[in-house]
C-alpha cells in the first residue's frame, strides 16, 4: 500500500517534465495589412536554447535575420543545440494577411520548446518572434499571438537602402516587397549611432512613415507600413 502510493507520487512528480517525442504542425499567419515576412524559421529545441531574448543584446545570428532576413546563422544555433527546424515553410516571402504552409516537426524527446522568427519588411531591424514556447504534451490545437520586436541592432532611420541595407551593421532597409516605399527621406532618426533605443531586443515601437514618396522624413508610407500588435498568429497542432 505504501509502496503503491509512493509510486503514484513519483509518477506525478515526473510526468509534467517528462520529455516525449511529438508530431507538431505549425502554421504562421501574417496578420498585418502591409508588412511582409522574410523566410520563416520554425524550430523545436531544448528549453535552454533561445533564438532571441527580450532585454538581451542581439546575437550576430539574430542581427543577420532581423536586418537582412538571413536565417542561416539561426539554423546553426538550433543545430548546435541538437534542435530541429523547418526553414522557409511559406516558400519565400509571406505576404500581408496570408498564412504560411504547414511546418511539420517530428520532435525528439529533448526538443520541448518551439521558436519562430522572421524579419518584417520594410523595417530596419524589426522581426516577428516566438521565444521558446513549451510544446504541450496533450494533443490538441493551440493558438498563439506574436508581437513585433526590434533587435536593437540598427537605428530605425526608415530609409531605403535596397539590397545593401540587409547586411549586418549597414544602415537602411533592404527592400519593400509591397512597392509602396519611397525615397529621398531625411531620416526619422540619425542612422548612427543607434542611440535612440536600447541596444537589446525589445518590443518594436512601430513605424512613423509619411505621405511623401519623394521626400519627407521617412521613405516609408504611414498608410501602409504601420502596424499594431499582434502581427502574427501561430497555430500549433500537437498530434
Amino acid at each position, binding site marked *: 500500500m505504501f509502496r503503491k502510493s509512493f509510486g503514484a507520487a513519483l509518477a506525478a512528480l515526473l510526468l509534467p517534465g517528462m520529455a516525449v517525442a511529438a508530431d507538431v504542425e505549425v502554421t504562421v*499567419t*501574417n*496578420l*498585418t*495589412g*502591409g508588412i511582409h515576412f522574410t523566410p520563416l524559421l520554425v524550430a523545436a529545441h531544448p528549453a535552454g536554447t533561445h533564438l532571441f531574448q527580450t532585454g538581451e543584446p542581439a546575437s550576430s545570428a539574430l542581427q543577420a535575420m532581423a536586418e537582412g532576413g538571413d536565417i542561416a546563422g539561426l539554423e546553426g544555433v538550433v543545430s548546435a543545440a541538437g534542435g530541429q527546424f523547418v526553414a522557409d515553410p511559406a516558400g519565400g516571402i509571406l505576404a*500581408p*494577411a*496570408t*498564412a504560411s504552409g504547414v511546418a511539420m516537426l517530428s520532435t525528439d524527446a529533448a526538443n520541448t520548446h518551439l521558436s519562430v522568427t522572421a524579419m518584417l519588411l520594410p523595417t530596419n531591424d524589426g522581426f516577428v518572434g516566438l521565444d521558446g514556447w513549451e510544446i504541450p504534451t496533450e494533443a490538441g490545437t493551440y493558438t498563439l499571438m506574436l508581437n513585433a520586436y526590434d533587435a536593437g541592432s540598427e537605428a530605425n532611420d526608415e530609409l531605403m537602402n535596397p539590397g545593401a541595407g540587409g547586411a549586418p551593421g549597414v544602415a537602411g532597409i533592404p527592400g519593400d516587397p509591397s512597392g509602396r516605399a519611397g525615397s529621398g527621406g531625411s531620416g526619422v532618426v540619425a542612422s548612427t549611432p543607434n542611440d535612440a533605443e536600447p541596444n537589446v531586443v525589445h518590443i518594436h515601437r512601430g513605424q*512613423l*512613415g*509619411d*505621405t511623401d514618396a519623394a521626400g*519627407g522624413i521617412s521613405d516609408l508610407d*504611414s*498608410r*501602409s507600413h*504601420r*502596424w*499594431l*500588435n*499582434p*502581427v502574427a*498568429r501561430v497555430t500549433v497542432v500537437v498530434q
Partner: protein
Amino acid sequence: MTRNGKWPLAALAMLGLLAGCGGSDHDDPVEMRTLRVSVTNLTANQPLSPVLVSLHRGEPAWRAGAPASAALERLAEGGDGSALAAELAAAGGIVDASGSAPVAPGGRDSFELRFPAADDAVLTVATMLVNTNDGFSGFSALPVGGLDAGAGRSFVLGAWDAGTEDNAEAAGSMPGPADGGEGFNPVRDDPREAVRIHAGVVGRQDGLASSVLDSKHRFDNPVLRVEIERVR
C-alpha cells in the same frame, strides 16, 4: 359515421401519449441555459456600434487572411450588424441579440442569451469602431457549449481591419461622430482585400493631411473587453 366508435379510442390514445410526454416535470428533455455576455469599450475616442452577440452553430463569420463577407462589410463599414446576424442565424442560429445603442468609450453593454443546451454552440461578438473606415472588433465561433454553470471567461481583443474599404480617413468616408460620413458602400477599394489586424489610424496631426481624424481618435490594442459567464 360507421367508424364513429373507433375514433374516440384513437383520439384518447393520442391524448394519453401526449400527456405522458408533456406532463412530466421530472423528465424535461430540454435544459435551458443562460449565457451573459458583457462588453467594455477600452478605447479613448472610438464609439462602438450597437454590439451584435450571436449564439450559433458552424463556421466563423470571418477569418484572418480571407476576404470579408458582404454581411461583415456592412457591420465594419457602417456599424449595421443586422445582415451578419441574419447570415449566422441562417447558417445555424440558436439565439442572438443586438445592442440598442452605441457603446461610448469607457462604456459597457450586457446581454443575456437564453437557449436550449447545445454542446456545439459557438459565440460570435462583433462591433464597429465607428471613427474608422472599416475597423471592427470581436471574435467569431468561440466554443461555449461546454461551459459549466457558473463558469466564465474574459478576453481582451484587438481591432480588425475588414479589408473592404481604403483607410483614407477622408471627409465623408466614416459614419462616426468624428466625420458623420458614409457607412456601408459595396465598392471594395482596400489595396489588400483581406481581414487582418488594424494598423491604427494616422490622423492629420501625424501627417495625413487629408484625414479628418486627429490624435484623439488613435487607438492601440486591445480595444474591447468581452466577459462571458454561464449564469444558469
